[in-house]
């Protein structure tokens, strides 16, 4: 006996097997990201004052990335609709745009991450804090690096304002740190802690990187599956078009979920 209902819809549920499977899987993914969102809320509410940064992410870039994912969402459903109407060429076209959007999203995310790896915070022994850049924009320095490299001082270009200061709501708020001040020398002996905006910096960056990296992995995974079905997997259109169309629908459902997560991630991490 063959396994039934791989393409044919079962009478009482009106579903084919893979569609049941993907929705169940998406339910588990809701719980996964849900747990992380819950953790975000708890960590933010429980953070000692001044330790949960805000306004350090680039909003225009985040908005653009949001638009990129939304575009990919409509192209992925148009790709499926094209197959349903029997138009393989249009399917290839729309799906190619989906893949380009995925690539674009991941590329932009990479640049966003890099921006954080060269952006630092210094805690001095006298209790003051500064954020800014180190001369030469080295990657991922921390307190240990100062003694490893036997540095006497660092040349630091501080940002115009620190995230713990009261939030401003005008033109300054548009960029992520409001421009640079003049470079200063900070002796290593004065530095209590040095950290880039990496996961270890604070629970905010911990949860930011965890959420966005997990999301990015899902984008990558989805793109790989969609890419496979666009390339070598597309052979099935000739041998079993119904089953192939269903595969495009199922992978599209996953893709929409990935977009859904970002729809919540963007305001929560960038705006609130």
């Amino acid at each position, binding site marked *: *006996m*063959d*396994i*039934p*209902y791989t393409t*044919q819809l*079962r009478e009482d*549920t009106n*579903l084919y*097997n*893979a569609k*049941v*499977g993907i929705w*169940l*899987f998406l*339910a*588990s*993914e809701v*719980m*996964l*990201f*849900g*747990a*992380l969102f819950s*953790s975000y809320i*708890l*960590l933010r509410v*429980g*953070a*000692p004052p001044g*330790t*949960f940064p805000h306004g350090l992410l680039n909003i225009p870039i985040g908005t653009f990335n949001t638009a990129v994912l939304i575009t990919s969402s409509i192209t992925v459903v148009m790709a499926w609709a094209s197959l349903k109407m029997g138009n393989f060429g249009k399917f290839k076209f729309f799906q190619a745009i989906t893949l380009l959007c995925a690539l674009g999203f991941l590329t932009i995310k990479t640049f966003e991450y890099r921006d954080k790896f060269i952006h630092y915070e210094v805690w001095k022994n006298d209790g003051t804090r500064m954020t800014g850049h180190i001369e030469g924009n080295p990657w991922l320095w921390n*307190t240990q690096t100062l003694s490893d490299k036997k540095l006497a001082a660092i040349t630091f270009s501080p940002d115009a304002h620190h995230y713990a200061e009261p939030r401003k709501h005008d033109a300054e708020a548009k960029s992520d740190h409001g421009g640079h001040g003049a470079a200063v020398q900070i002796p290593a002996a004065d530095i209590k*802690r040095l*950290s880039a905006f*990496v*996961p*270890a*910096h*604070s*629970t905010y960056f*911990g*949860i930011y990187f*965890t959420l966005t990296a*997990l999301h990015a992995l899902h984008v990558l995974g989805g793109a790989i599956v969609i890419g496979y079905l666009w390339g070598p997997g597309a052979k099935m259109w000739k041998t079993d078009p119904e089953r192939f169309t269903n595969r495009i629908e199922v992978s599209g459902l996953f893709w929409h979920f990935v977009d859904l997560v970002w729809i919540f991630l963007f305001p929560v991490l960038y705006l609130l």
Partner: protein
Amino acid sequence: MQPTTTKETHHAAHEGHHDEPGFWRKYIFSTDHKIIGLQYGITGLIFLFFGFCLMLLMRWQIAYPGKAIPVVGELLYKLLGEEMVGKDALGKIGLMLPDLYNSFGAMHGTIMVFLAIVPIAFAAFGNYVVPLQIGAPDMAFPRVNMASYMCYFLGGVVMLASFFVPGGAAKSGWTSYSPLATVADLGHHWDGQTFWILGMVLLITSSLLGAVNFIATIIQLRAKGMTWMRLPFFVWAQFVTAFLLLLAFPPLEAAGVMQLMDNLFGTSFFLPTGLQVTGAPLPVSGGGSPLLWQHLFWFLGHPEVYVLILPAMGIVCEILANNTRKPIWGYKSLVYSVLVIGFLSFIVWAHHMYLTGMGTKIATFFQTTTMIISIPSVIILTCFFISLWGGSIRFNTPMLFALAFLPMFGIGGLTGLPLGFNYTDIHLHDTYYVIAHFHYVVAPGTIFALFAGIYYWYPKATGRFMNEFWGKVHFWTSLIFMNLIFQPMFAQGMAGLHRRMYDGGATYADAANVLGVPQAFIDMNKGISHAAWALGLAQIPFIINFFVSRTRGKKVASDNPWDATTLEWQTPTPPPHGNFPKPVEVYRSPYEYSVPGKSADFTPQNEPEKR
């Protein structure tokens, strides 16, 4: 369900002409649910034995603290080194050091729960039996099924490998509470705890894939006439279990990722501000919450215990109906109860956290939901007990184990009540009372049901019975020794003996007259340990029986040697690839035994009505 297209007819005609797959495709990389079920079963039993051995070694240290382990002690030293195994006061090598005790404790729990019981109860029995019982040719997604076993196998390998990394295996309890889980091995990044988390991620992935498969299969692949209310209770139990795994595991996966980041990337998800370790502040940002880990862990942890028990209840139901020769009493109640248990199990979790400083309102909430969830559990047990009344009971080995399950689970369940009330739990939390409670539910509870299932379905998988005499020996010895192990622990716990103590409570001896545990309760450790070792010996006949019966067991006289009604007994023995030679149609409910007016004392579900 006749083939409706030329493609399907074409395939059906070729059914008998498949090339026989080679050894690797047939037994190792199989997509057949029966082979996968057996793979899960054998691997699970090996892990069950391994986890059991860890406990046997721990019990030496508990009963005879400070003495080197005889025979095995030197071997452990050679394998694990001097960090883990030391010399006792007499200079003999083989003393279990505290780190080793804690590793064995954490890994015993982890292995038993995630590598043994869940794979056997859910994945092994479920994979083998569920498609057969619903009249399906296989699971809905056979390749996903294979992937899920591979993930499980890899996860097991990672867990075993963790014993040999510097610092040894995870040693912060199977519950891996932060901050201890992060600071236990500050010297090493890739320590046992990291391996534990990676292993758990693999195991969780395996469970998620399996859960999707089970639910989709039960929804979509029921044979014609197999309506929801004609499903054997075993299938209902597996269906609810799959939902628990699907929705409860992901928060633990999220928490595991966060703890991994704490361990490897210096984050502070679960590390509070101002944490000091051996006198020095930990160089992390702080701001995290140890409570957050506990909430996320127990959000899985509680549904997990229902994952451990529901498949067992399903197995017991099948065997009770078959060996009382009457329908199970209260089928509808059973179905509704299992659905309610599944639902409620998601909102009781913090009864594991009563001592974390919760306020009265939230404690009351969890106490209330915990009390409510005991109701459907009692309903299920009561239905089983009532089912025995007026039955024509056959006392074969599977039935003995299934019968014993009832009072044993009863004891386990009832002793959970003082733990569910936050007031009494203040006294009993983290004592041996808790250990006794949950072992009663899982050991003479679930494991007995698993033994019952093995003896019961063995003839379908192999065509031979396991030996009845040695089965009964296995039963009686296991029952007696399990009770000798866990019964005294209730008393120890009520007297205040704390769990997870390296020396079995010997420390209390110094404080005996200052609210310490009276020596008499600590002395019980010796009796318990001896019973544990005897329990180990009692498994030897079972192990031999299991392997020898494959070739020397009494052959079955028919495909349905137990005269059972459910569909798995209406196939050839063992069932071929595709299970049913012709599509199945179901005409009646699953437990039509001793129906008045019929000539036979049972009617299979797929037997057409005689006109």
